[in-house]
């Protein structure tokens, strides 16, 4: 009996401490990443999907609410900020190539941002989604912190947007390279730009696994489309209404 009591005590401590959420996040990702490497980097084994599934199963089994988990998860989540700033480095290293492509990038970016927002909202509207879901879907291709800000401004649900953004990134990471092969798009700079516009940071992470060039262009497109989207999407949505 006392043994059980001790375990319960330990659990009371753990469930109130950020240590549990943080350690589990790193463990789940470590495991998911190993599975990904074992599977010869098959995009279907994307480590974000595996890690998220493992963590949800764990939280469900231990009856831990998301808010309690996020007490620890927030430390990892916070690093998205400095990681976004860090994208300046690969961008700087590819600057020579960017100079030759600036016109194509300048035209493709706003087109991609508009298509990303309008296609998602249009398809969901045709299939009967409610207004709040539609508004939360509009910034789905934009990098998470920016997308949540946009969702808040246009009247969506920021935390739902975060989930839709992550799912979009996973879809881009899983199917992107296959789609480019089918369309015979082989230039890594073009692939990278499309990946960054459509699938933000998760697409960028996948692009870095393909090549440094594709990663740098994806990072660039992600950052620039965050600018374009924060100006363009609220305006597009008000016009759609």
């Amino acid at each position: 009996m006392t043994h059980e009591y001790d375990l319960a005590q330990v659990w009371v401590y753990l469930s109130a401490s950020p240590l549990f959420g943080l350690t589990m996040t790193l463990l789940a990702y470590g495991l998911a990443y190993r599975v990904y490497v074992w599977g010869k980097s098959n995009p279907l084994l994307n480590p974000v999907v595996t890690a998220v599934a493992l963590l949800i199963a764990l939280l469900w089994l231990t009856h831990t609410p998301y808010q309690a988990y996020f007490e620890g998860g927030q430390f990892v989540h916070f690093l998205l900020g400095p990681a976004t700033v860090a994208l300046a480095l690969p961008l700087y290293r590819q600057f020579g190539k960017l100079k030759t492509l600036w016109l194509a990038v300048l035209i493709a970016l706003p087109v991609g941002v508009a298509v990303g927002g309008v296609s998602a909202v249009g398809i969901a509207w045709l299939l009967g989604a409610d207004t709040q879901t539609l508004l939360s879907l509009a910034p789905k291709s934009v990098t998470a912190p920016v997308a949540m800000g946009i969702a808040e401004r246009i009247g969506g649900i920021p935390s739902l947007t975060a989930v839709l953004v992550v799912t979009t990134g996973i879809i881009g990471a899983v199917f992107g390279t296959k789609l480019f092969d089918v369309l015979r798009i082989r230039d890594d700079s073009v692939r990278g730009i499309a990946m960054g516009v459509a699938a933000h940071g998760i697409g960028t992470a996948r692009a870095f696994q393909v090549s440094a060039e594709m990663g740098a262009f994806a990072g660039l497109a992600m950052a620039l489309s965050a600018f374009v989207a924060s100006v363009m999407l609220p305006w597009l949505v008000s016009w759609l209404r």
Partner: protein
Amino acid sequence: MDSAVSANFLNGITLLLAYQLVGEVSARLLNLPIPGPVIGMLLLFFSLLVRDSLAQVVEPAASALLSHLSLLFVPAGVGVMVHFGRIGEQWLPITAALLVGTLITLALTALVMLGVQRLQRRSAHHDA
């Protein structure tokens, strides 16, 4: 880890956070619709153009963060459990919008870029 490597990491992460801080403060002071980290990224990019030696300072921290960029999205992804209800009710429009919308966006962005490059090459031929 030897102390030189960890000191380099510390300098790099400090610099990244300082740029993010400047970005966040200027976004608020100037009332910009653009998020702080994105402004920080652009400021760091311009700083690198002016001073190449900064690249060595940020390198250790930047590559550590970027090599496991996927990890940073995990806590937000777990948030899906809060929205299981809404997603369950509207799974068809949400799935279709995400899947089809993302593929259309990937394809069109790439094709527009290729199209512009092709036009540029054609006009370069005309000029020559």
